[in-house]
């Protein structure tokens, strides 16, 4: 009798443990699922918006680039599908679109590295301990929040009027700091140093656009600064003890550690400067929008395709050199 009882209790115990294991497993799975569900809950606004608003916009925009808009008598518009006609018109018939595109890309080939290098340099400077660091930081981030949109448009309008004005430079309202360095001086300097005139041109361009570059590198500076902050001071300390100079520390420690940020910033800078309203191509497309929306949309999509290709190429090249610190 006794034995039997023990047997059954054993069985019950075994059964219980099996059950327990099963429920335990199910519990883990359900916790995961619950977490997944709340994850979806958190991203829900974006997902719903993306599906309900963004995708229709994108699709109708792509549709638009393949069609023609004709105004119907009585106020409505009629949209008919015309295939690649708009793209053909933009690429082969429009006299200046391709030209603008090429020159826009050429400008950015020099501007983007300049922005990146400047932002990294300033971030390293602003990361050092010194008197008035907070004040300098506050000043350097002013353009990020203030020199966008309307203010940019006003500046652009002023440049147009001042160029219309011609020689008169007496007023103080010339907003761009365009006379920092006379380009002739630099050209002379470079000629005496036996460099080609092409290099001199690039340098004078960059120096004269220093205001633009400072203006555009605000967000990049922020991202670099945050990257610099995330490097552990212990690494620098051990370098110092081993006798590394500041120069060596920068190239052997700071640069590799910050290389993921360089990738992020390179992509961000390309996108930002290609899509900013002050960009030549963007303003050309904007101008075309007023005369024909379909053509302008086709141009914009073609331009977007080019930008994506450039971003992909740059990201591909950069990511080969990026160093990721192993995360624990």
């Amino acid at each position, binding site marked *: 009798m006794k034995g039997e009882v023990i047997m059954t209790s054993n069985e019950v115990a075994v059964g219980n443990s099996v059950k327990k294991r099963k429920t335990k497993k199910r519990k883990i799975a359900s916790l995961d699922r619950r977490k997944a569900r709340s994850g979806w*809950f958190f991203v829900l606004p974006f997902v719903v918006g993306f599906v309900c608003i963004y995708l229709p916009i994108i699709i109708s925009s792509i549709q638009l680039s393949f069609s023609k808009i004709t105004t119907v008598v009585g106020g409505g518009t009629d949209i008919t599908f015309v295939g690649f006609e708009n793209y053909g018109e933009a690429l082969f018939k429009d006299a200046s679109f391709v030209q603008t595109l090429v020159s826009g890309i050429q400008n950015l080939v020099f501007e983007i590295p300049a922005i990146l290098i400047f932002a990294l340099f300033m971030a390293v400077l602003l990361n050092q301990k010194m008197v008035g660091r907070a004040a300098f930081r506050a000043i350097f981030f002013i353009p990020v929040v203030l020199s966008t949109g309307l203010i940019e448009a006003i500046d652009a309008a002023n440049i147009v009027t*001042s160029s219309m004005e011609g020689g008169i430079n007496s007023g103080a309202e010339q907003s761009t700091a365009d006379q920092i360095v006379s380009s002739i001086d630099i050209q002379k300097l470079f000629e005496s140093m036996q460099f080609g005139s092409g290099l001199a041109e690039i340098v004078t361009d960059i120096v004269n656009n220093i205001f633009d570059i400072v203006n555009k590198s605000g967000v990049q500076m922020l991202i670099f600064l945050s990257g610099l902050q995330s490097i552990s001071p212990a690494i620098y300390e051990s370098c110092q003890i081993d006798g590394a100079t500041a120069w060596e520390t920068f190239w052997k420690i700071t640069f590799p550690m910050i290389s993921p940020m360089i990738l992020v910033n390179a992509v961000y800078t390309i*996108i930002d400067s290609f899509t900013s309203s002050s960009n030549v191509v963007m303003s050309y497309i904007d101008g075309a929008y007023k005369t024909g929306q379909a053509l302008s949309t086709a141009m914009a999509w073609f331009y977007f395709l080019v930008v994506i290709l450039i971003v992909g190429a740059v990201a591909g090249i950069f990511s080969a050199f990026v160093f990721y610190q192993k995360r624990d």
Partner: protein
Amino acid sequence: MNNQEINSTPTIKKESKNKIRVDFERSPLKERLKTKFLSLFFVKKVVWYLFRLILLIGIAYIVLYPFITKIAGSFMSPEDFVDATVRLIPRNFTFDTYIAIFNELNYVEAFINTFMLSASTALIQTFVCCMVGYGLAKFKFKGRKIVFLAVIFSLIVPHRTLQFAMFRLFSQFDLFGIFSFLSGNAHTGIGWIDGILQSIHILPIEGGSFNLLNTFWPLIILSISGLAFKNGLYIFLLRQFFNGVPDELEESAYIDGSGTLKTFISIILPLSIPMMITVFLFAFCWQWTDNFYVSTFFTDSGPTVMTSIVNIPPSLKTSYAGQNIYYSAIRNTAGLMIIAPLIVLYLFCQKFLVQGIERSGIVG
């Protein structure tokens, strides 16, 4: 060696119960100063310090110069612009430009409208981007990568590309034809179905869709769904920030019986206030000075916003020689008046701007 010798013979005197006095022989002052200030190390430090200071001041000057010229130009009267001897300090000091813009261009109305628009969209954007960033950072669910790619995609596609499509969508706003279905305006082309559809009159909407132009709704809808200007960037920044928040915080909250939403609101959000202020500052300022969405969604009969301030007030119209320069000075003054509230906001928030970003510790 020298130090050791000096330190080896300190004399310790007990002055009172809790106080001792240590006397030791120090090397003479002159020698101490010599070792401190005449070393190469010190010279290098000073040179670097000066170089850095000059460089920073120079660049700060470049940043501030346009603002200084704008401020100077805003106080000048027309005569000063043709006077070659006047550059930064006005000779005939005047407030006329400010007064004219303030009185003749509906500055107050534009200010209130823009403030309402910017504040509401910025608040919504901050909260929504926090939610999405938190969801992407802390929860592992199927399709997370796809959602993140969608965020990046929405950042990459310039909204100018979508201008006309956005205009059309919001001029006849309708979610999947739900509204037109509920109001009996749906069409299928088949007679009897149309008859049934037309008998549905649940919502009294004319034409079956809303015209949301000239209202704040397009921007608010875009904000709620995290698709407004540069929201992809905010989501990205916040995701990086939340990645750096240790999981233990939430786990302990879960163990204490708090749900995910409650944990998010009462634990995660208070932690991320600097970052949220950063995002709010960006969203507010970029919406404040925006001229793209406003020109897309608001027609001439729409609400007055800051864009309409950038005009020449009727009383200041002239036809004298320096007209163009004077007009651009007026536009600059308008620009200054537009960003004046932002400067105040920036002064309050700039401390958090760097703090928030610093703590985000963006990696990759």
